[in-house]
């Protein structure tokens, strides 16, 4: 369970203070699929970064399974993120000089030696995202949609319970977008908690809950 208690975040931009998130209190229950929408610059990515413990709130607390993540050291928080949370970015951000399988295995570099899943896990995930047999290829040999699926496999490698996605369907064609959303829904059915940020109102209906961000304020969609 993810809890945000009075979480606020402000930025300095052009000499002015911009309120990215204003004193938000809310909870994402285990197994929920929360879709966050809002206009550009509404603070959607900031909201996701706060949930993922990537940026420190100016005030308030972020709790994952009851643990205030900002009470942990950076190393502990990073390890916790590695174990519990998977990230899917707007862009695949694969390392071009590693093979597809090595890219999927990237999160293992941040785990203690004994905890790393075997290489077979990466190959199984590639199969799950429809890229069986692509493990030895290089990222540049894949299409944009295929690269995005590799990024999803990478996010799932450490069997995270939470998946955070920042505009995951940007730059994708309609069919790949549908396939990706089908995969997200399938993962959610299997119990994974998903928080997805998107500018697309159409995708909002796919989640179990829809939040709208505007001017730093979070509202639940009707």
């Amino acid at each position, binding site marked *: 369970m993810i809890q945000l208690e009075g979480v606020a975040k402000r930025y300095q931009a052009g000499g002015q203070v911009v309120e990215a998130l204003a004193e938000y209190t809310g909870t994402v229950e285990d197994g929920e699929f929360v879709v966050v929408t809002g206009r550009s610059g509404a603070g959607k990515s900031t909201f996701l970064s706060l949930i993922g413990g990537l940026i420190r709130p100016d005030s308030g607390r972020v709790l994952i399974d009851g643990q205030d993540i900002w009470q942990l050291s950076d190393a502990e928080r990073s390890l916790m993120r590695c174990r519990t949370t998977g990230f899917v970015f707007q862009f695949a951000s694969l390392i071009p000089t590693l093979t597809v399988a090595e890219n999927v295995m990237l999160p*293992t570099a941040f785990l203690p030696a004994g905890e790393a899943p075997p290489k077979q896990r990466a190959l199984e995930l590639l199969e799950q995202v429809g890229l069986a047999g692509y493990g030895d290829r290089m990222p540049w040999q894949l299409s944009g949609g295929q690269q995005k699926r590799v990024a999803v496999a990478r996010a799932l490698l450490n069997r995270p319970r939470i998946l955070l996605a920042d505009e995951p369907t940007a730059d994708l064609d309609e069919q790949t977008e549908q396939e990706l959303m089908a995969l997200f829904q399938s993962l959610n059915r299997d119990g994974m908690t998903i928080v997805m940020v998107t500018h697309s109102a159409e995708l909002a209906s796919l989640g179990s809950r829809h939040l709208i961000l505007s001017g730093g304020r979070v509202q639940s969609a009707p």
Partner: protein
Amino acid sequence: MPRERGRLTMATLLRAGIRRSRWRSAAGALVSLIAAGTLFSALMLFSGMQTALDASLSKLRAELLLTQRGGAAAAAQLLTTGSAPPLEPTIPVADWERRMREGGVVGVVAVEGLDLSEGGAGAPAAERASVLLVHLEQWATPAFAVAEIELLIPEAEVVVAEQTVRQVARQLEPILRYLFIGAGVAMLATVLLTGLITSVRVAERRTVLGMMRAMGASQSFLLRLTLAESGLLSIGGALLGVVAGLFLMLLLAGDTLTHVPQGEWLRYGVGSLVATVAMALLATLGPAIRAARMDPLEAARRGR
């Protein structure tokens, strides 16, 4: 094989990072190569020259060198390098020694003849010598002895050891100064260029570094990764620089290098390498800290 066990090691990430921007990696290594090579060459040349002068002085143990007119240059070279070009043995040793003794040159302890007909370090000569080595008492003033010898043996040219060595050292001073200025500039360039190259490398990989952070890389992991990458390139470059500097110096100043004591070679090599790598790491620290502290999602977007 770490990959088969399923865990990606930092070594794999380092290799991937270096291979990703090959030209910038090569530029980073080249900067260290030039810096370490210049520093090593300067140190070796300095040490070689100093040791050669000291060795020549202590080997001859003579305060004055006497030659026939026109032989002073060869005597000075013998004094400063320990080796002279061939010089005809035309000095009547016994006659010159007698004239000095009878003339009462103050402070003369001993006189030795040296045959330089074959050149090099020369051989002792009892009858005819190319150079006469004059040993003085510790309290004796060479200038007085020179004045007396020039009166007693007008055909002799007198070379004062200490004066010659000091003169050579004065001549070498600007060369060494430029060499050390060059080394200093190379070290400064290492700091500036390594910092610049690392900044560019970090900027162009902002997305990947941000993604790693989101995936669970701690700030210290990213700091270590960036520092290790620069450190590896710098070590590689500096090693090649020391080897290149050594070959260049052997080619250009091989004679001088033979005077550098054995242990000093290693000391200067390791010293140049450590100094260069330390400078490179110092320059990398700023960009590495920025890489570790970046906001991953912001980095992912700006990186595009």
